[in-house]
């Protein structure tokens, strides 16, 4: 009796611990501000403006974010255009990195502020800015060195969030493929005929490989419609090669899954 109680207690607590880690994540969109992390530094480029409406009112939310700094976010408005000039020298990066690693304590970030505030002259310095810079330098290195980036050491929450494309980026890719895809008009619109294609891309957007994820269905008898749809989808992917891709965030889009579904078009 006691033994089973113990087992039950241990097992329950294990589940409790695991769910406390995983559940907020499973709910999704737990902390929307996190979305902005990577793209923010790319403010100079029109197509890369991230979808992060919550932080767009800069100054106001800035304080809030500061209060609960967990990551190195920077709201778009307070990233000045001159930012690239202010990229710290390599030694600085090293220093900052070290500091950042200990950065759990916001006070230390404050120290950092003091150090670099001279560098930045009299401008009121925001720790978030620095971290944004660091983030960028990391990003740039990321492609060359296969070293795990800072992000990878962050909570999984973050990892998931950054694996999404921004809506603008997604739309840009969709728009290209829409043009290349010649829909086979004789397909039935009342059947589930989604074709999933996994593509791998080079940093310049050229196609490395494309692969139909349900290859087996291609050669199954009675799946003629699926086969025809899949062939047309493959043609679309190849006709669109090379894709115009975002200039950054290669890690995010170097592999993508495209779900081709002609239902809506055929119904119309």
């Amino acid at each position, binding site marked *: 009796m006691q033994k089973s109680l113990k087992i039950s207690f241990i097992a329950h607590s294990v589940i409790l611990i*695991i769910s406390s880690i995983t559940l907020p994540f499973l709910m999704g969109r737990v902390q929307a501000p996190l979305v902005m992390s990577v793209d923010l530094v790319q403010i100079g480029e029109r197509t890369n403006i991230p979808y992060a409406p919550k932080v767009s009112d800069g100054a106001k939310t800035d304080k809030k974010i500061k209060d609960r700094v967990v990551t190195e976010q920077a709201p778009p408005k307070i990233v000045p255009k001159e930012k690239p000039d202010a990229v710290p020298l390599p030694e600085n990066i090293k220093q900052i990195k070290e500091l950042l690693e200990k950065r759990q304590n916001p006070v230390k970030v404050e120290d950092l502020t003091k150090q670099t505030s001279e560098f930045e002259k009299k401008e009121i310095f925001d720790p978030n800015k620095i971290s944004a810079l660091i983030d960028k330098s990391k990003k740039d290195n990321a492609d060359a060195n296969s070293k795990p980036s800072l992000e990878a050491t962050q909570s999984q929450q973050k990892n998931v969030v950054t694996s999404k494309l921004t809506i603008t980026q997604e739309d840009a890719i969709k728009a290209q493929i829409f043009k290349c895809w010649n829909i086979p008009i*004789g397909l039935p619109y009342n059947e589930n005929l989604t074709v999933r294609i996994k593509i791998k891309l080079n940093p310049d957007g050229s196609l490395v490989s494309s692969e139909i994820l349900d290859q087996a269905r291609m050669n199954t008898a009675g799946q003629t419609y699926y086969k025809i749809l899949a062939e047309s989808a493959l043609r679309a992917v190849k006709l669109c090669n090379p894709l115009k891709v975002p200039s950054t965030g290669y890690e995010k889009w170097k592999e993508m*899954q495209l779900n081709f579904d002609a239902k809506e078009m055929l119904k119309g």
Partner: protein
Amino acid sequence: MKYKIFTILALFFILTAKSFALVSVDITRGNLDPLPTAISDFYLDSKLGDNIKKLQLESKIPELIQNNLSRSGLFFALEKKSFIQRPEPAHNKPRFEDWAFIKTQVLVTGKISLEKEGRLRVEFKLWDVVSATELSALAFYTTPDNWRRVSHMISDKIYERLTGEKGYFDSRIIFVSETGPKVDRKKRLAIMDQDGYGVKYLTLGNELVLTPRFSPASQHVTYMSYFKNLPRVYLLNIETGIQDLVGDFPGMTFAPRFSPDGKKIIMSFAQEGNSDIYTMDIKTRVVEKLTDNPSIDTSPSYSPDGSYITFNSDRSGFQQIYTMKSDGTNVKRISFGEGLYGTPVWSPRGDLIAFTKLYRNKFYIGVMRSDGSGERLLTENYYQEAPSWAPNGRVLVFYRETPSDSSGRGGGAKLWSIDLTGYNERLIQTPTDASDPSWSGLLSGK
């Protein structure tokens, strides 16, 4: 305990799966532009005799295929002049770069060779230029004079392989050929290929003929002809030319049409100003009355599975479209728009009903779903009616009359086709004026 471990494992699985999820992009739109297609000349086997070489089938067959595919509105055939590779190597192993260079997405190649007893072997291959693969290859055996038929069959195979839907090129259209002045019009039954080629007359023209309809299951046609000023329903076997009177009713019969299995004829039958819908078994000649209403019920047409019938009726006060079960129960009105609706015809695909609509002195050909929703008017004109479906349910043929001028000249009827998009409307050339078309099923069967 085991169960709990499972739960934990499952949780971890979900966790990891999600964090490594691929970026996923939904592609729900594409274009409906005609597919760029290159149809290369076929190449002739060197053993062919001069008498066959003279026929120039190596270019005539591809031209006919091109004509078919272009008319469908779904393919854009590229100029032959732009082709880089010659027909023979292209058929054996195309250099896909050469074909991709001229921006075609698919390529058709072929070979004609001689078989025993002077028969031809016509082989074609369909290539996906973008993916650099062969999509299909087939050979047909035929006599040289049957090359048009083979071209239509090849067109159907290409159409089906690329759109996912059966083709309609290997089919015929029967219609009423009209000659002579308006007051003394000579009306003959005529038949031709769906592209307007090879018109043949089936009746002499000393009797008035009306509403010919193909059997979906055989080479039989039903039509009406006047006998002693009374319209009668006839059956005609196109292959043998044998004509047969179907029953002898005391009243007037109208708009006969076959059931999908070809075993029954459904028609309306008028007596003392009231018209109802009847069926008649062709073999046993047993007649069954399906509607019993004081209104005028006419133009019946079966659904392709034979379980429903659509017809028009003025029981609501105006002529509208109705459906009912094939035993006459469950009558439902399905058209509710303004104007008058007539000549409903059920699509061979089963999803749509085509109709003629009269609204504000204009005639429209339109389609609606079989429950009456999604009405779409495809074409508007001064006078047009009697739509008939192509065997694949994507194209309609109908006839259109143009108004004559004040002196009574001009103004004739012609056959037109239109596809479901409403954009691809085409005149079908006929040697005389033509009306009341009916499209056959595929000649090579389903």
